[in-house]
């Protein structure tokens, strides 16, 4: 038992070192069934210097205004000890990133409508729109990237959805 445990931890440590090399990550991921091999290149080589914002609008006889999904909260010192919103914020950023990379990789772009991340954003919008009970509505959503906080600057539209009924 002793040797088994030592060998397992030693192999994992060596694998962790190799996993930091980007070229080897895909190969090693095949063996990592639990998804626990760590990637430690925090905020490098190029850190995120813009925010993602998800906006949506309803489409009826007349187009609605674009509305933003709340993704950000203002700075508070309290977040040194207590910051649950970071999970939601990171979750939204990850989902947007996954969706954009999936969209870029797809040959037939229409298939993006069955992507888990696309559906995830639709569910989020649906929850914002209907609060759980409402009639089906036709909507569009877009992911835009912005720079700055005090003086907000829209950089570009990263993704635009199809017309969806939710």
């Amino acid at each position, binding site marked *: 038992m002793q040797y088994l445990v030592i060998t397992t931890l030693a192999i994992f440590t060596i694998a962790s070192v190799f996993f930091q090399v980007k070229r080897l990550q895909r190969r090693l991921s095949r063996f990592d069934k639990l998804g626990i091999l760590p990637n430690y290149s925090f905020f490098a080589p190029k850190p995120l210097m813009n925010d993602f914002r998800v906006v949506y609008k309803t489409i009826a006889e007349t187009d609605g205004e674009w509305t933003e999904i709340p993704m950000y909260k203002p700075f508070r010192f309290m977040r040194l000890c207590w910051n*649950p919103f970071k999970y939601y914020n990171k979750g939204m950023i990850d989902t947007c990133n996954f969706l954009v990379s999936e969209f870029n990789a797809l040959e037939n772009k229409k298939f993006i409508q069955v992507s888990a991340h696309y559906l995830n954003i639709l569910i989020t919008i649906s929850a914002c729109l209907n609060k759980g009970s409402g009639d089906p509505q036709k909507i569009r959503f877009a992911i835009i990237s912005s720079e700055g906080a005090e003086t907000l600057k829209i950089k570009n539209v990263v993704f635009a959805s199809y017309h969806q009924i939710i």
Partner: protein
Amino acid sequence: MNHLTVPVAYQISIAIILVSAFISATELLSIPKLYLNFGMPSTAIKNKRRTWITIHAMQASLAFLTCIAFFNAPDIYFKVLFTALTAVTLYSYRKRQAGKDGSDQMRMLALLSYSVCFLLKNEQGQLLSVFFTGGQALISYSTSGIVKLMSPHWRGGNVLAGVLSTYSYGVPKVSSFLSAHPLLEKGMCYSAIVTMLAVPVTFLLPYHAPLFIALFCILCFHVSTAILMGLNDFLFTFPLAYPGIILLHGVIFGI
């Protein structure tokens, strides 16, 4: 002089893991409204919400009970509760497709390795588990430091104002201040790289003092990222590996 013994290092590390697991679980539990489905999407939003609350309430309760058992109950209760905590955390970790970061990785690895080491005799298991987490922290700081050092963006020294200007990880006032003082920004960029690399570099020196200073500096760095960037989880998680680093260093150099 290193007075850190294996049981003390183990106790410190376990206490930090449990505090970190408790805070993380209660934070996940209290995300105000679960609009985003962190796992695979499904139309059953309400059911998912209930599962989410159940899992993280269990995780928080188990972390609390394990902490009590660790200091007040026979070893076997602690080990059973700790293993249960690891299982629930792993389930939550696997389910969450989005919204995970480096501190989640470190906490998950610590929980898993400590649970696996329960299979060994007490002192042997304790030693191996603290060594493992110490090794992971060394890999982590080395990778993060080296990748930043090799990055032209970080070497250019104009990254921090950009990162801190975002809503996601920033404080606009600090960002504006740094933009107005490019030399200070450059200094801060380089100090982040140096602080990270200082841990593995001082680990290779046969003296304790530089390593302690490096660990203190990196802890201060985590405090600053917790305040400025909202990454408080790193502050509660990464120190769990410091006793392992100190012990491993002591064993390698026989000091």
